[in-house]
Structure formats: structure tokens, C-alpha cells
């Protein structure tokens, strides 16, 4: 499990608003990938690693100091017109953390056994797509400061990835509803909510990418 080095308060204060945003994105992305990794371990029935990964997402607070430093800096900064937009970007990154934490807490409530191998493969496929769009979003956010055009293009990949996830979601739910199981059972509810939570995170990532594209059209001059 890769853990990002914690920077001291002094070191954080030396960073610019853009650098803090990128660092924050790295931290949250790392936690997000841990969450995805944890769910994959759940699928493979490696419950110890599953619990360890999700507890990492819930308990880690490495990003709190970055958030405090950013909030102190942004209002005092000499940025002319992009303060509000940068603050919003930061807020959206923070939302990924909140959604991840919510998901992790929910997933730890119960230890579910997956119905069959086919179902596990579909879940792993949707998690692979989620990992891809998370990485793409992270790259896109980190390019806002230096190359908004490229950032815009990467967001198209994010949106396409999320469309693919949507198709996979319906396949998964279709399978789930057709199993011979009690629809009020904890396993059914757990798996259904797990799929919905994965899509909730994907939807947020997609909405975030659309916001980045909005920023690109706002600040860049397109022919």
C-alpha cells in the first residue's frame, strides 16, 4: 500500500495554490484507489486486505492539513479572477473523499459473499473502469494549471469511461435481480447498494470532468 509522504505545515505553506490543489488531488486519488483495491479484495474474498484498505480510507487524515493550508492561502492570494473556480475545484476533490468515506463505511457493515464467478467478473470490470476514470480525472485536474486544452480532452475519456460503466451497471443489476435469492436479504441489499455507490462515485467524477470542461471553455479561446 503506497502511502504519500506527509508534508509539514511549513513545507505546505511554501506551496502555491496550484501546487496544493495537485497535492490534494494526489492524496484523494490515492485513497480512491485504495477503496477500489479494497472492493477488489472483497470480490476475491481477501477480507483482511479489504478491511485494511477501507479503514485506511476512513481513518487517514493526510489531506486535512493540505485543505487547511489551501483555504488560508486562496483568499489571501493575488489571483485575479479564478479564485472562485479554483475553490470549487478543490471542493469537488473533497467531495470524492466524502463519497469514498461514505462508501467505505457502508461496505464495512457486512461481509457479503458474491453469488457466482460471472458476477465477480462483472464487478471487477466495473471497478477497472472506475479506476481508469479516477486516474484520468486526477490527471485532468493536475493539468488545469498548465494545459487546460489537454485537460479538456482527458475529460472526454472520463465521460466515455463512465458511459461504459453505466452499461456494465445495468448488466450487473440485471444479474442480481435474476438470482434466486430473497430480495430483502442482507446480501442482496449489500450488493445492490455497492453497485449504486460505485455509480454514485462515477457520476461525481463525470460531473467533475464536465466542470473542468466548462472551465476550459470559459478561459481558453477555441477556434
Amino acid at each position, binding site marked *: 500500500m503506497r502511502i504519500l509522504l506527509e508534508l509539514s505545515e511549513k513545507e505546505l505553506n511554501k506551496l502555491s495554490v496550484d501546487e496544493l490543489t495537485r497535492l490534494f488531488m494526489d492524496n484523494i486519488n490515492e485513497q480512491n484507489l485504495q477503496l477500489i483495491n479494497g472492493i477488489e479484495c472483497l470480490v476475491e474474498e481477501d477480507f483482511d486486505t479489504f478491511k485494511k484498505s477501507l479503514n485506511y480510507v476512513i481513518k487517514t487524515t493526510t489531506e486535512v492539513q493540505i485543505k487547511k493550508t489551501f483555504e488560508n492561502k486562496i483568499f489571501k492570494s493575488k489571483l485575479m479572477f479564478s479564485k472562485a473556480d479554483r475553490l470549487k475545484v478543490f471542493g469537488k476533490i473533497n467531495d470524492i473523499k466524502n463519497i469514498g468515506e461514505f462508501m467505505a463505511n457502508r461496505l464495512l457493515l457486512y461481509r457479503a459473499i458474491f453469488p457466482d464467478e460471472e458476477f465477480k467478473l462483472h464487478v471487477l470490470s466495473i471497478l477497472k473502469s472506475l479506476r481508469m476514470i479516477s486516474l484520468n480525472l486526477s490527471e485532468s485536474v493536475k493539468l488545469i494549471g498548465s494545459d*487546460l486544452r489537454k485537460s479538456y480532452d482527458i475529460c472526454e475519456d472520463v465521460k466515455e469511461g463512465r458511459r461504459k460503466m453505466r452499461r456494465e451497471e445495468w448488466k450487473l443489476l440485471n444479474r442480481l435481480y435474476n438470482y434466486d435469492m430473497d430480495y430483502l436479504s442482507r446480501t442482496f441489499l449489500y450488493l445492490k447498494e455497492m453497485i449504486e455507490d460505485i455509480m454514485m462515485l462515477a457520476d461525481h467524477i463525470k460531473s467533475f470532468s464536465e466542470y473542468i470542461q466548462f472551465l476550459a471553455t470559459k478561459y481558453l479561446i477555441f477556434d
Partner: protein
Amino acid sequence: MTSLLVAILVIMAISLAFSIGANDETLSVLVGAGVLKFKIALIIGGIAIGLGMILFSGGFVAKTVGADILGEGIQYTTFMLLTVLISSIIWLVLGSFAGIPLSSTHSLIGSVVGVVIVYAIFQGGINLEIAFNWEKLSNVILSWIISPLSGLVITFIFFKLIVKLYLYRLKGLNQIEKSEKYFKWILFIVVIFAEIWVGANSGEALGILYGLLANSSLNIQQYFFFSIICGVAAFLGIYIAARYVIKNLASQMITSRPSEGIIIQLSSSVILMIATLFGLPISHSHVVVFCIIGLNLAQKKDIDYKSLIKMAIYWILTFPIAAILSALFYYGLAIIGLI
């Protein structure tokens, strides 16, 4: 009686200069961009507009309004000037209450035309063909059409050039912010440049004083003295009264980019400069509106054509309505034996 009227006219001219400053919104783009502190912007902008008025009081637009548009052998009388001022003020006030944006320049010239026609026919016994310097007058009216259209075209071209040469190369938000910081200071210079020409082209107040100079109601020293007072009044107009409008508009411009402000202000001020040097009184607000349209067209943004047509109708009607108002007012004064 004549001295009293001259004194009233001088006071009204100074008040007009104050209102020119009070109605000027040029500084709002500077304040919105956060280039200078608010009060400092007002002081520097006020000094610029006052200087423009004073430095170009010796001729140019003041001379056109005060003498050149009249025909040979015709001069303003004090009552003519009084009528021109009162009727143009009435029309502007009516427009304000009705929420119609009107040009003070068009109002003033329209009032002059109305009064001179009545004077020529009923009092001076002057043929209308020689009552006006038709060449000058037609140049003035033509400049009202050419100046806003030129503003549109110049802004459009200017924006495309800046995009091609520079703005298109800016990739990331950091680069854009950094470049706009430099544009901030260029905007400062451009806005001060614009304020000077706004003051220089304001023929309303100085035109009245020039009319008094031309009919020997004022001597040259008095004329320049009162011109300086007009400059100071314009400064006070900005500092005391325009601050509220500037602050209000500036708060809507916080997210606008200095580069866009430069394009609009530079285009409009170049047109004002050319018009001033040719002695042509034009409407600064008309030019700025068309510059904004030019920028929107260049950026492929939507234009509110409905509002534009409505505004154009008021602009076209201002001149004849002001002329009719002033003619009726002057005729009324003549009938009751005041003149």
C-alpha cells in the same frame, strides 16, 4: 440682465461638466479588475477627465459646438444658449425617468439645431441655407454613425489579432492568470488614456462657454478660467457622484479579464481621440456599446438584437426630439416676449 444670464449659463456649464464626470463609467473596468484601490482610481480617473477637458478647451469639440456648426454671420445669443441647455437637460431628465439611455451629445446638438432654426426664421431673418455650416453639421451627424460602427470593426479586428498573436498560446490557468496580471497595468494606462479623451470630447459644457466667448459675453481669460473650473467640476463629478455607479458596475466585472477591458477601452478611446482631433462631438457610450458588440461577435457570443434595436431607435429619435423641444421652448419664450 445679460450679465445675470451669462452667470447662469456659466454655472449651468459647470454643472454640466460635473454631470459629465458623474455619468462616466469608464473607471468601472479598472476598479473591477482590482488594478487600483477604489479611491485612488477615482482620483486618477478624475484628474484625467479634468485634464482632457482643460487641455482641449482651446478649440476642437468646444469650438465645433460653440461656433463652427453655425453659419456665417450667426452667433449664439445668451437666450439661445440658455434654451439649448434647458431643453437638452429636460429631454435627458425625461429619458432618465423613462429608463431610456440617451446621449447628451445628440441631445445638445439637436437642441442647437432646433433653436437656430427658430431664431433664423422668426428673429434673425436668416436664410436656413446659411443658418448652419451644413458641411460641419453633416460631418457631425455622420460621425454619430461612423464612430460606433468603427468601434465595432476595430474591436473585432483587434480581438482577433490579440488572440492570434498571444491569447491562443496561453494553455493553462496559471499562464492565463500571470498574463492577465501584466494586462492589468496596460489596462490602467489605457483607461487613463480613455478618460483624457472622454473629457476632451465632452463638448457640452465647453461648447456653451465657447458660444459665450464667440458672442463676446466672455473674454479669453474668463473662458479659460471657467474651462479650468469645468475640468475641476468633472473631477468632482467622478469623485463624488460617479463612485456609486462605478462601484456597482465594478462588482459585476470582478470575473472579467483585463485583456477584454483593454480591447474595448483602447478601441473606444482611439475613436474618441480621432473624433476630438477632427472637432467632432460623438457619444462615448454609443461607441462603447458597439465595441462590446464587436467583442461579442469576435468571441462568437450571443447578441441581444432586440435590446440593440430598441436602443438604436432611442438614439435616432434623440436628435429630432431634442430639436423639436428646444424649438418649441425658444418659440414659446419669443412669443411671451422674453426674447
